[in-house]
């Protein structure tokens, strides 16, 4: 029933436009006179568009740069290069009052509901804190009422406004984090692993809440997670990251049913399926070794050291994320093709 709704949501105008964003963390040597000896290429040229009312899922393994990307978008890190606009305004050039105004429009939900809430503040103060920074968002007299409304919106009891975070369970704390993100009525919310710290039965409640809020408020989400099933469930489009780059991006069906990049195919095949009958007729693509260090990524295609299709060209020429003949969605592989055994 919501499937049809989600397909219409996709047709929105672009609200967030990210172009070749790069973040290199310097590696330095020496105590007094630090000299730069290298760089961790956490995000290495990432481009994508987020449309209004859409959820863009970003998946990848640890160290692929997905959280750094989130921090860049929130302006918690300074990008090394690149450009991004939010509703037409330059995200990286803004500073001072202008930056504050832009930030009102984009908020973040963090992974760990235990450390992202100040234990000495009441829930009312936590959710109301954005109003201190943006007093124009809610006049002083109405703030308490607005906070109680927010508690109600995320399914918490508005009477608990004076309680402290430790009096809530993990799932409830994540709801508090979501209420705080909603306080300024942003158009875009960046969710960095919002459900990975939660138990299965609680995870579903929070995912449903995020989807309901999106339908009601027309929010756009950047949804970062390592759990492929959760991302498929919530996303309209999905970007797969490997070593600081997007290797494949497309609609949910294009990525999950018609992936053409070998890394995406391996990632999907390795995800455990909760069905014992699938055990025997599931072929897992077994990748060799580990993800290389982002301080010294392989030349050409970053994935080539673990790829079974790798040829000479992969070490020389960096494949671009362009439309491929196998399936018309961007895939950064010289040998992009559908997985033959995929059913």
């Amino acid at each position, binding site marked *: 029933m*919501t499937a049809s709704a989600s397909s219409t949501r996709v047709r929105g105008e672009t609200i967030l436009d990210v172009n070749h964003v790069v973040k290199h963390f310097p590696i330095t040597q020496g105590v007094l006179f630090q000299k730069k000896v290298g760089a961790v290429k956490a995000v290495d040229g990432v481009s994508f568009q987020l449309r209004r009312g859409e959820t863009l899922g970003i998946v990848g393994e640890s160290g692929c740069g997905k959280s750094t990307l989130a921090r860049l978008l929130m302006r918690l890190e300074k990008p090394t290069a690149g450009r991004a606009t939010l509703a037409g305004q330059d995200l990286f050039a803004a500073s001072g009052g202008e930056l504050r105004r832009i930030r009102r429009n984009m908020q973040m939900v963090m992974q760990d509901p235990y450390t992202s809430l100040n234990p000495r503040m009441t829930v009312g103060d936590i959710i109301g804190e954005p109003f201190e920074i943006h007093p124009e968002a809610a006049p002083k007299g109405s703030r308490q009422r607005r906070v109680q409304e927010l508690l109600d919106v995320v399914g918490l009891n508005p009477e608990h406004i004076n309680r402290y975070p430790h009096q809530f369970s993990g799932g409830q704390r994540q709801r508090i984090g979501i209420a705080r993100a909603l306080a300024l009525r942003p158009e875009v919310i960046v969710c960095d692993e919002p459900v990975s710290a939660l*138990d299965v*039965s609680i995870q*579903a409640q929070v995912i*449903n809440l995020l*989807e309901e809020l999106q339908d009601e408020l027309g929010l756009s989400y950047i949804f970062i997670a390592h759990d492929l099933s959760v991302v498929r*469930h919530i996303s309209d489009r999905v970007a797969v990251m490997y070593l600081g780059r997007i290797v494949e991006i497309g609609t949910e069906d294009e990525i999950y049913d018609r992936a053409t990049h070998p890394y995406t195919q391996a990632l999907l095949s*390795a995800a455990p*399926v909760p069905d*014992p009958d699938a055990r025997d007729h599931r072929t897992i693509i077994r990748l060799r070794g580990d993800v290389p260090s982002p301080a010294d990524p392989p030349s050409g295609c970053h994935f080539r050291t673990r790829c079974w299709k790798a040829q000479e060209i992969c070490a020389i020429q960096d494949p671009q994320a362009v439309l491929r003949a196998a399936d018309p969605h961007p895939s950064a592989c010289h040998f992009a093709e559908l997985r033959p055994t995929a059913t």
Partner: protein
Amino acid sequence: MSQHAVRPTPASPTPPGGHLLEVRDLHVEFRTGEGLAKVINGVSYHLDPGETLAVLGESGSGKSVTAQAVMGILDTPPAHISSGEIRYQGQDLLGLPEAQRRQIRGRDIAMIFQDALSALNPVFPVGWQIGETLRQRLGMSRADARRRSVELMDLVQIPAASERLGDYPHQFSGGMRQRVMIAMALAMEPKVLIADEPTTALDVTVQAQIMDLLADLRRDLDMAMILITHDLGVVADVADRIAVMYAGRIVEHADVRSLYRAPAHPYTKGLLDSIPRLDQRGGKLSTIRGLPPNLMRIPSGCPFHPRCPYVQQVCVDVVPHDLVLDDGRTSACHFAQEVRDDRVS
């Protein structure tokens, strides 16, 4: 499919031959400053040679505490085993003095943990740590222990094992560290391997490698394995049998295929329905309402009744026994049969 023989059982049935490992009616409580937390409330399970039993549960369900009790590594205090038996090859481990217990721990029953970085000692090279067991237990010389450590590292497929012997844990990646810990656990060729969330901290591609390795080792070395996890996907891939825990009890116990096909406890059913599936797109997820219980105040009757969609008055008043269904599965639900058949029909 309509008539199922349902009979209540007093305790877990024991076959004449006896099991390799058997936990009987185990009760563990934590005596804390805030009160008494009943963490394990009558857990019984058994393990036969060569099989894989998965213990599935959410945080606080008691799955890890049960395993720690079996290993004899519970932190006492605050944890106290108030009653129950843990039998290994017929011998009650809880009655043994610590010195004898220690002989069994590590040699016959070994354990691996979720977080290899904190389970390994950061100030010793991994080769030394793997060899330590061999030197202590078998009195091996340093050269022999070294040679055997390389073999073990080869066994768990650590590339260039002999060169990495002198490396420290922080020099290994997460997946490789997990392999080091597995190599240590295998040093004495245990009959039972307890794996407590062995892949939870790992990425999916590495998780697949480690689960493959564990399955191969289990088969090649003819070990039995207890896999403790919260991940319904991992369980479906490797387990023979599943015990689902909730509030310190095993609420359902079945072979893996029948459990996924037709869960016979509302909690299991709720869990299976609430996970998003890789092979299915959107829609609203069904949820289990409410929160897991506070173990200091476990609800009356069936501990799951405040969250159960099928709750009746009897569930509030009477603690359900384990009902044995006709196919040998057990479920601690007054309406086990109805719950299961609802799914079948």
